[in-house]
């Protein structure tokens, strides 16, 4: 009998506990991101700070594996669940906007004029129908990683400034066995890795072919200049043989090859710094991407993850979500993000910080931010495939680069047309 009484008392106490919290209205908002350890840890810290500043708001932080992210959203939203603030790859934003899942950023909290003044230019990719739909905390760009030990052995005195120098350096670093099989690549090549971005936003542009029309509706790289850029890239595989596709199998094989000392140079994103720092035995360095000519116009590819407000955030939850969003993209958070995650700040003011520019690993990436361009991806998987296939058509089937590029452009145009045809719907 005593036990029963004890149980009743405990149960009553447990039930009464939430009542103790009454007296202060609490709003709970939900934040979703994919799982990336350093980001998850940092956001947990940030939420603690935010909740201390806004005692009325509680933020539930949920994360999912990257591969299941869109599926998770798809299953949660029709069920009336899901986040108020969501983290998305910038290339997914049109999909989320057209699905009616994002609300535009409120003009008073995020005035477009101010955004465009304060942020690096690439964030304009998140402007759709004249409105901003999402905003990043951090951004990424491309640069060249080089193996300093291999540089020394091959008597390459400094990181190449032009692609011509790049090729010459790559040739000197490439090692082959007596049968001609490559044992060390001068350039770790990966069209499906970062190289399709390199082609699109760097090589095409520097060789004089803008990849897309200004309104992002037309594919424009299939020109003589574009074909020359593709030829230069594919010649590295077929003529000078300084690199090979799938040299190390697997996603990020080019990066693994670099870390194993089997590639003299790779083109990779700022997000690779952490892995390369942990995994590379040789001494290494980072340099800005070369240009076509000394002093010629530089170009770079930028990408980023954004935070957006979902249509689920209404009433008091919307107010709380806007506060949280402001907090997530604040200058203070951007600084923390740089230290904890290693991603570059999205604020121009922070980018201009001389300490950041002087950082040997970050510097070259940061210096590219003022001119880095994002590609307006409407179907990244399909658009990547088109260029990967163009490279393979030249390398494996000996197709003339011009023809391979024209076929690629036709295929990619179809993908764009499909997207824009659907967008016309109100």
């Amino acid at each position, binding site marked *: 009998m005593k036990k029963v009484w004890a149980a009743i008392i405990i149960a009553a106490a447990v039930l009464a506990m939430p009542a103790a919290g009454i007296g202060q209205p609490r709003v709970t908002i939900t934040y979703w991101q994919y799982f990336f350890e350093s980001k998850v840890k940092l956001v947990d810290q940030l939420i603690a700070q935010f909740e201390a500043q806004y005692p009325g708001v509680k933020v539930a932080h949920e994360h999912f594996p990257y591969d299941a992210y869109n599926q998770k959203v798809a299953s949660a939203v029709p069920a009336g669940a899901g986040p108020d603030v969501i983290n998305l790859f910038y290339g997914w934003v049109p999909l989320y906007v057209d699905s*009616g899942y994002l609300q535009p950023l409120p003009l008073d909290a995020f005035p477009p004029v101010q955004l465009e003044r304060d942020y690096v230019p690439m964030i304009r990719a998140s402007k759709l129908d004249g409105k901003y739909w999402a905003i990043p905390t951090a951004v990424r760009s491309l640069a060249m990683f080089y193996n300093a030990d291999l540089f020394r052995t091959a008597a390459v005195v400094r990181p190449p400034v032009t692609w011509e120098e790049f090729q010459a350096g790559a040739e000197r670093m490439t090692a082959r066995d007596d049968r001609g099989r490559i044992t060390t690549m001068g350039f770790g090549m990966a069209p499906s890795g970062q190289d399709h971005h390199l082609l699109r936003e760097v090589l095409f542009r520097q060789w004089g072919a803008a990849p897309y029309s200004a309104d992002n509706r037309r594919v424009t790289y299939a020109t003589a200049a574009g074909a020359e850029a593709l030829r230069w890239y594919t010649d590295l595989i077929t003529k000078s043989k300084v690199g*090979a596709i799938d040299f190390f199998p697997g996603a990020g094989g080019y990066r693994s090859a670099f870390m194993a000392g089997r590639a003299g140079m790779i083109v990779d994103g700022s997000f690779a710094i952490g892995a390369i720092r942990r995994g590379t035995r040789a001494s290494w360095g980072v340099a800005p991407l070369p240009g076509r000519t000394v002093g010629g116009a530089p170009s770079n590819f930028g990408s980023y993850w954004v935070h957006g407000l979902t249509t689920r955030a209404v009433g008091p939850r919307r107010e709380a979500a806007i506060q949280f969003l402001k907090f997530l993209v604040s200058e203070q958070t951007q600084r923390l993000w740089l230290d904890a995650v290693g991603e570059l700040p999205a604020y121009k003011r922070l980018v201009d910080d001389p300490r950041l520019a002087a950082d040997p690993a970050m510097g070259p990436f940061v210096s590219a931010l003022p001119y880095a361009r994002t590609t307006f991806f409407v179907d990244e998987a399909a658009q990547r495939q088109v260029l990967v296939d163009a490279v393979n058509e030249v390398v*494996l089937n000996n197709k003339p680069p011009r023809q391979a590029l024209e076929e690629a452009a036709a295929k990619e145009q179809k993908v764009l047309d499909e997207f824009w045809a659907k967008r016309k719907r109100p």
Partner: protein
Amino acid sequence: MASQVAAARLPRRGLRIGQQRALWAYLFLAVPLLFFAAIRVLPAVSSLYISVHEWNIISPNRPYVGLANFHTLAADPRFARAAVNTVRYVLVGIPAQMILGLGLALLLQRIVKLRGLFRALYFMPFITPIVAASWVWQWMYSQHLGPLNKILQAVGLPAQGFLRDPGQALYAVAAMVVWQYLGFQVVIFLAGLEAIPRVYYEAAEVDGATGWRLFWRITLPLLNPTLVFSIVYGTIVYLQLFTQVLNMTFQDQGGPLANTLTLVLYVYQLGFQRFKMGEAAAATAILFVVILTITLLQMKLLSKPVEY
């Protein structure tokens, strides 16, 4: 348990003990049936539903589009490519698996010593995780660093592209799948061979039949049920090829130039990488019809009752 036993004993509503037992049996059978319905049948039905709708995986709107997804697929060269490749995997893989499997089983049947060991060795690939095996094979095939090219060069042959060669890639993947299923095939054939009564062979030998005649006239016809099972099962495996292809061509999945792409891999790309769930579901529906037709045809054409 006690209550179940008690319930079974109590005569209720005039049911006899036999009927009650049957009722309980059905009740227990209903649980896995419900599970099967929820896990298998419902998703299949919902996939058919999605195949006539447009859905980008995110949007709450799924407008009905009739057969538009099927029309899109009919005009999609990548889909056609995936379909042709899938048929090629079946046409290459099944004969290779059957001939090698039967050959090994016949050899194993002849030896007494170490048969268990050999059987275990051949079976090992089948219980090796597919993903791990695929990655090891990818390295073995590696053009510049792989051991296969090293061996080829050691015996004076030119290095091959394997997975990087548009003409070889599909066969390179198929070889890995055959390797993987060979042990399973051998075990199935061994069981089938053991089931053939010795008396037939003895009688035939008395009549003067030897070697190949015994094989063609006795072994093969009496092995028919095993063969039909193996071919039907194997065909389904090859029609659903996915994991091996995805992992062996991980950087350019189904490549190079869609030369190893299979239907199921294309369904995955359409649905989960490009968010075209309607088209992906339509492709699944087509694959379902193809597998059903081929299986029914095979069972009808291949199973011949044999009487001696």
